[in-house]
């Protein structure tokens, strides 16, 4: 008797969502099975990797992460171009670190100018990640929406607390939203429902389930993503059928072991290769739990993960 694989029955699929504009636009999501389970469904769009840049020179990045960008760390436009031209970035994520009220507290106008310049300088989708301080993000992302009218930026994180302002602005000026919640299926659904009630189409929403670093609570994010996908696909919950994004580089490179130099942790070997593989293994975990967009930092880990995706997808 022949062996038949026990197949999952799916009641729903992940939405196809297009980010960016013109020939630079890209579609993510669209899968009709669990991540990489191509024997029982399709994965029309490979997960993509968005390269991370900051709007101010990072002070706490380890040497290994800074080295490839040494010449551009204080110039976000040049940095973005380098990612695209030299490393073939599929998308760029600008982390608006300078706007953090606990830090430099840069103004919404300044941030909007930076975003506009970058957006005009590159031909790949641009994702803009705020300071994660809800009130400040409200102000900053709203301004950016206006100034970059029609660019179809991806703006986040948008939380329950600031969904109204950012939601309305994004809707008005044609941007996509990252709906964000702290590792919880119900809260993720809640933010999406609130956005929908406001009039935002869920076809313009990417979900950020909150990302834990490798060894720093990755398992919580991993499981909540599996549960979100189950709700979306096997239970057919149409409020959760959105592609997911993971702000991974930021979490991984913050870990103590990703930062320690050789003299502090000789047993951990070469700090550069260690950090690269920590980021890449973290990425694989998130790919297996359903990520459609991974935000990553080091060109080498990005290269590795892209080849991994190609292999797994072949």
């Amino acid at each position, binding site marked *: 008797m*022949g*062996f038949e*694989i*026990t197949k999952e029955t799916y009641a729903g699929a992940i939405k196809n969502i297009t980010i960016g504009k013109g020939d630079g636009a890209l579609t993510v999501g669209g899968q009709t099975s669990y991540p*990489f*389970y*191509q*024997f029982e469904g399709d994965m029309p769009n490979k997960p993509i990797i968005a390269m991370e840049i900051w709007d101010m020179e990072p002070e*706490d990045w380890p040497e290994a992460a800074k080295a490839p960008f040494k010449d551009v760390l204080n110039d976000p436009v040049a940095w973005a171009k380098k990612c695209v031209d030299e490393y073939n970035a599929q998308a760029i994520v600008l982390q608006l670190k300078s706007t953090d009220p606990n830090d430099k507290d840069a103004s919404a106008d300044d941030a909007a100018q930076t975003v506009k310049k970058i957006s005009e300088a590159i031909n790949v989708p641009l994702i803009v990640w705020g300071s994660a301080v809800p009130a400040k993000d409200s102000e900053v992302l709203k301004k950016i929406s206006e100034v970059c009218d029609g660019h179809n930026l991806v703006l986040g994180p948008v939380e329950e607390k600031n969904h109204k302002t950012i939601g309305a602005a994004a809707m008005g000026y044609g941007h996509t939203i990252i709906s964000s919640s*702290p590792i919880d299926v119900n809260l993720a659904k809640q933010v999406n429902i609130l956005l929908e009630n406001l009039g935002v189409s869920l076809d313009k929403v990417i979900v950020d389930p909150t990302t834990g670093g*490798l*060894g*720093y*609570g*990755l*398992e919580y994010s*991993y*499981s909540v993503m*599996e*549960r979100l996908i*189950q709700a979306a696909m096997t239970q057919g919950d149409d409020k959760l059928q959105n592609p997911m994004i993971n702000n991974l580089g930021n979490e991984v490179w*913050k870990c*103590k*072991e990703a*930062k320690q130099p050789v003299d*502090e942790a000789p*047993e*951990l*070997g*070469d700090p550069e*290769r*260690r950090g*690269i*593989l*920590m980021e*890449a*293994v*973290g990425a*694989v*975990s998130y*790919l*297996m*739990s359903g990520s459609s967009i991974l935000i990553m930092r080091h060109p080498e880990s990005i290269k*590795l*993960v892209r*080849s*991994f995706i190609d*292999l*797994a*997808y*072949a």
Partner: protein
Amino acid sequence: MALTGIQIFKLLPKTNCKECGVPTCLAFAMNLASGKAELDSCPYVSDEAKEQLAEASAPPIRPVALGKGVRKTATGGETVLYRHEKTFFNPTVLAATVSSDTDLAALDTKLKIYNAFQYERVGLNLRPELLVVKDAGNGADAFAAVAEKIAKESEFNLVLMTEDAAVMKAGIDKAGFKRPLLYAATEANADEFGAMAKEAELPLAVKADSVEALIPLTEKLTGMGLKDLVIDSGSREIKQALEDQVAIRRAALKAGNKALGFPTIVFPCEMASNLDMETLIAGMYVAKYGGIVVMSDFATESLFPLLLERLNIFTDPQRPMTVTEGIFEINNPDENSPVLVTTNFALTYFIVSGEIEASKVPAWLLVKDSEGLSVLTAWAAGKFGGDDVGLFVKKCGIMDKVKHQELIIPGYAAAIAGDVEEELPGWTITVGPREAAHLPAFLKARK
């Protein structure tokens, strides 16, 4: 299929003698059904009933014990497809390959290097468990010598990898005492390898060229009386291998397929041409159902991330790792040393104490029970509020140990400063840095 309480009850003596610790046989049966009791607690069940119960309660995927000594481990025994449904029990076993033509002096060096790959984290020692001795075709003696050296001189446990029965026999003679896994029985040699594993009472890997082709082989071997099997569906291409892992896990758990109810072994070392890519592929099988994952080599930079991933994926989702509440002395503090407070989430504690230690500044670290939650999570969940923290500082006994009245709280908990102050009149509440990484500079700058 699991039996219900009533079905189990029918097999018990029904005397209600209470020796099992509960008032009735029915109560005991219910506990058995829900996994809260062990059958051994009832001294009166008949052998026949025992057999039936054992059969019915056998886990859908057999747990297989591997090796001996400090790196003894087990694989299999999983009961769910997704970790949030219950938990994953036996972390993916990590292995590297050693060829039987490795020169013994070089092996000596290699073992020393491999042995150093151990990492302390959240109170656990993270390290790999296995070395695969791979037959390079240079004879039984060479194979046995390499296996023997690893078995005797290192903590590592072994997989003996050859399809030549004479070579395997030599390996078992020299290294069998350490309970190696024999790799592998195939369609061609199943009788011979099965007999060898049975005689030596060792676990046996079974290799076929598809999931389907594994079934008659494991049936044949279990028919011979073998129980401890590990299965390899033969695919060396990652897409197919992932499908196979899922097919096997679902067959065992969802379709009750006993012939596939065994842990798996996968070979990233045969799926990529460099260790970095092997590492990523291994990462995929740590998440998706690899029982044993075999790499070509161990390097600290590739092992460490995999060990972290494994730690995360195999953490029990119902129980965050914790440390006990109390006062921790770091770098021999005295009555003038600073006092810091944090939560009892193991990860938080280890990061914070690690940084204080690294600063070389003597300090008292107070760990408050927050049900295993991190600072921000505990604060958001109301387990690290100002009054609680204040009360805890009063009660924990630190006031008898120091002369000063200053408490350093985590930067992320700045919001509780006012409430702590209210609870601790006369004390100065200092808000420390947010990230523990900034603690050394912060502590040193205080002098």
